[in-house]
């Protein structure tokens, strides 16, 4: 401890901390530009100079550790003089054109200049000009405004883990730049917009759209990955103008992924459904809510319960999913599912995917085994915590996957194998950990598997085993999960599952499953049909919640065909596509992210409630209200909810009082395939909202998801070459795509992403695939 005096007041503080950390903690204002609490200290802007007794010169608060007996003055004549001088230097080259700058009104430089600067300029020479550059679809540049704080450069090195921006040239010519014509492609790139203290880096999608003083803010929860970042909407006249992170120490700290930041664009897509519509005599007509709901209820009433199916996206809220299953079960049907990306339904019980630890605990790990996880692109801020473990805790990371996703930290063992080899690999590691188990009799252990096992068997180390979202798309899901959990058990590790969607865990807790209801309770009576069964043979009627079959379902064209054959389909959706008009009979417009209240359960296990930030577009309504009225019209009991809170309380009460019994599952080795078909949702096409975010579609990450991916050896074997149009055909579907050579794949595998129009024609049948020149 140290006793220091700041502006005449005495403080007991922790010795060794920097002065600015102390003043920030005590609410003492010190101006700064280059300092940021989550970045390394550069001490280059000199704005935080303070007057320290006995120091020959003013000292930078950001780089000065406190010592016992230190006396600091932040507003003495010497401090003020230093602040004024630095401010004058910073403004020498900064254009004074705030009225035409997008940052005007929320600019740190503007604020500090007013508070600490001089009121007139002595500089009459010409200011420097820096030529702008296109650095991608998300960040707009005005480099002439740059004051060289280098926060964006340090962000790239320290947080994003890939240095894309740098400070090139020197002296008067120094500028922030990317290499040659490169763009900034990090999945966290949008954060430099928040970090930039001036208007040099601003958000391109919302550029010049609104002034900060016209905006009001509302809180929200990120609607894409299962991490559940906290965010803030900036709203003008009932329209979300942009999204920024809201600080949350336990989850996203001060960051936000690009997907969560820019997906709001989807809210205002051209194909938003704004009024209820019904199909009468083959003609679509816009009607009022009452007629639409009556039409839907009349249609559903005629259907025998067993012939009724409900499918929902896991981006729906807990309340919506709970009501959907309650409605269907009230009508006597257990045909309900949200596992639209799953192929293997052999597990009897479904558990909500939880990390079983806080994200901060992952940052403390010593050894981490990642199985089928693409954390960097799918859960960027969870990946950030893992990266902290590698950087600061020297954690060893072992990665086993079907695709060699680029990592932004070193990995000690990196295995990329075809899906059928994945089970054998995991079994080999498990056997190396426990050779006595009879189930492993015929398993051979490779040298590498033995090395991985040794790596995981460490005493007094924090070992984490993490099963990622990519396992869902594999036909070996049950075996992979069983073996991964076994490895975790044998190594006394924390076993985590990441989930894929914002509400992957909530959907399971809410009971949107054919074999279990609320809180994982097994249903009494016959198990309903799962997503795969419902989408392969037509039922007589479906209720769809936020679901676009050809894009959201791993069954693609098959799913669409099945729904087209169904006599009656009620689609509750935020959008209206041509495909929807083809298969649906009623289109009920639902309020989307930011427009509805509800709850998401993230993979940390937090029940995160949010309220509506803006009124829904057109006459769209919250889906829980739509489902409530529909249930009332169908005479289903206990649907007298007046607020979404009442639904949540009902769900939470049951979840808190009941424990799920999980049945043990088994594993089997899988047979090799001649050509193995792999698929997963493209990074910016995983749900209806983000698919419609135009800026994200223009990013390098989105572009990289196009085409049919094979590695060079596979291409040679099939006598195909890069860029060539190839025809992929499976039972029930086909697509013609350009061939992309992708070294990240194992041999004899072809990867095509779902969620894209180009691949919607495929059935995404993981069993068979035929690849020929088109």
């Amino acid at each position, binding site marked *: 401890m140290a006793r220091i005096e700041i502006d005449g007041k005495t403080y007991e503080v922790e010795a060794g901390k920097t002065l600015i950390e102390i003043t920030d903690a005590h609410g003492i204002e010190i101006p700064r530009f280059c300092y940021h609490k989550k970045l390394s200290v550069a001490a280059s802007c000199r704005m935080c100079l303070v007057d320290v007794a006995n120091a020959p010169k003013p000292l930078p608060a950001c780089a000065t550790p406190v010592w016992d007996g230190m006396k600091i003055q932040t507003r003495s004549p010497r401090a003020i003089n230093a602040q004024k001088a630095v401010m004058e230097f910073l403004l020498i080259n900064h254009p004074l054109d705030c009225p035409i700058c997008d940052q005007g009104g929320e600019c740190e430089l503007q604020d500090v200049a007013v508070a600490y600067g001089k009121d007139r300029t002595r500089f009459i020479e010409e200011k420097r000009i820096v030529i702008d550059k296109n650095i991608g679809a998300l960040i707009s540049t005005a480099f002439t405004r740059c004051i060289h704080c280098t926060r964006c450069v340090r962000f790239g090195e320290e947080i994003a883990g*890939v*240095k*894309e*921006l*740098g*400070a*090139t*040239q*020197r002296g008067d010519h120094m500028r922030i*730049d*990317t*290499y*040659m014509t*490169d763009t900034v492609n990090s999945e966290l790139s949008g954060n430099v917009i928040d970090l930039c203290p001036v208007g040099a880096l601003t958000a391109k999608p919302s550029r010049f759209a609104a002034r900060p003083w016209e905006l009001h803010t509302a809180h929200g929860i990120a609607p894409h990955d299962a991490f559940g970042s906290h965010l803030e909407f900036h709203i003008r006249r009932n329209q979300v103008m942009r999204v920024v992170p809201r600080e949350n120490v336990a989850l996203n700290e001060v960051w936000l992924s690009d997907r969560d930041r820019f997906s709001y664009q989807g809210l205002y897509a051209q194909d938003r459904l704004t009024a209820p519509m019904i199909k009468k005599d083959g003609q679509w007509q816009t009607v009022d809510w009452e007629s639409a709901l009556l039409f839907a209820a009349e249609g559903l009433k005629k259907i025998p319960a067993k012939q009724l199916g409900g499918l929902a996206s896991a981006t729906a809220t807990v309340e919506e999913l709970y009501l959907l299953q309650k409605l269907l079960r009230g009508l006597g049907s257990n045909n309900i599912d949200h596992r639209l990306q799953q192929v293997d339904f052999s597990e009897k019980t479904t558990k909500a995917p939880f990390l079983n630890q806080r994200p901060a605990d992952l940052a403390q790990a010593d050894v981490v085994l990642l199985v089928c996880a693409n954390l960097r692109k799918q859960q960027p801020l969870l990946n950030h915590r893992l990266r902290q473990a590698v950087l600061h805790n020297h954690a060893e990371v072992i990665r086993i996957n079907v695709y060699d996703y680029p990592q932004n930290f070193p990995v000690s063992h990196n295995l990329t194998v075809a899906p059928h080899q994945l089970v054998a690999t995991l079994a080999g590691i498990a056997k190396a950990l426990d050779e006595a188990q009879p189930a492993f009799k015929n398993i051979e252990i490779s040298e590498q598997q033995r090395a991985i096992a040794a790596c995981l068997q460490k005493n007094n180390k924090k070992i984490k085993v993490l099963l990622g979202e990519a396992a869902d798309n594999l036909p070996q899901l049950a075996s992979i999960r069983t073996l991964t959990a076994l490895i975790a058990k044998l190594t006394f590790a924390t076993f985590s599952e990441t989930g894929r969607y914002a509400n992957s865990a909530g959907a399971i807790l809410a009971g949107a499953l054919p074999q279990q209801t609320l809180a994982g309770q097994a249903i009494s009576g016959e198990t309903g049909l799962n997503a795969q069964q419902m989408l392969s043979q037509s039922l007589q009627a479906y209720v769809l919640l936020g679901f676009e079959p050809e894009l959201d379902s791993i069954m693609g064209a098959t799913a669409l065909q099945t729904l087209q054959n169904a006599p009656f389909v009620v689609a509750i959706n935020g959008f209206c596509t041509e495909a929807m008009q083809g298969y649906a009979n009623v289109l009920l417009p639902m309020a989307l992210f930011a427009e509805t209240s509800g709850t998401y359960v993230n993979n940390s296990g937090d029940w995160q409630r949010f309220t509506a930030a803006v009124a829904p577009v057109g006459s769209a309504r919250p889906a829980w209200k739509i489902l409530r009225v529909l249930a009332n019209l169908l005479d289903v009991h206990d649907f007298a909810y007046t607020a979404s809170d009442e639904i949540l309380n009902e769900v939470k009460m049951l979840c808190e009082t009941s424990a799920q019994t999980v049945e043990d599952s088994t594993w089997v080795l899988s047979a090799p395939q001649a050509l193995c078909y792999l698929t997963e949702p493209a990074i910016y096409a995983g749900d209806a909202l983000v698919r419609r975010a135009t800026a994200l579609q223009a990013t390098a990450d989105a572009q990289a998801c196009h085409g049919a991916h094979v590695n060079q050896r596979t291409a040679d074997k099939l006598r195909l070459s890069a860029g060539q149009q190839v025809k992929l055909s499976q039972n029930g579907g086909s697509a013609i795509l350009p061939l992309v050579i992708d070294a990240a794949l194992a041999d004899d595998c072809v990867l095509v992403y779902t969620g894209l129009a180009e691949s919607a024609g495929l059935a995404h049948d993981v069993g068979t695939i035929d690849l020929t020149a088109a």
Partner: protein
Amino acid sequence: MTHKTSSLISDESKADIDRWLQKYPADKKQSAVMAALRIVQDQNGGWLTPALIEAVAAYLDMEPIAVYEVASFYSMYEHKPVGKHHIKVCTNISCLLRGSDAVMAHLEKQLGIKKGQVTEDGLFSIKEVECLGACVNAPMMQIGRDYHEDLSPEKIDEILARLK
């Protein structure tokens, strides 16, 4: 990132860079970036191309922008072709007082080029530089690794004749 090959660096240069790498810890390869840039610049006849900068980045496990930061910061890395004999004329204070303007003017006249240019035969190029630390014998210029001091028009002609 598409830039990923170090194949442009000759085996000889690689051996030279490896010697520098031995001076630093194995996980601090970037420490050798200045030496590596100088070596590949020499290999390429005195200037760096983007492809060479990318090659150095690949060889030292760095991002190209990080190498470019260094390459653009130091004025002794050239980004445009230079002559076989790259003449660096000091015009800093001591040389200025001792007539570096005349030195520059004479060189430009004799070679028929302006500073920053290369002669048509590719033999000479002129660059204006800051103090090279030979003020005691100002005015001066540097050609290749050699300093030429106490310059006069006659002495310059003599030096140029020797190099032609």
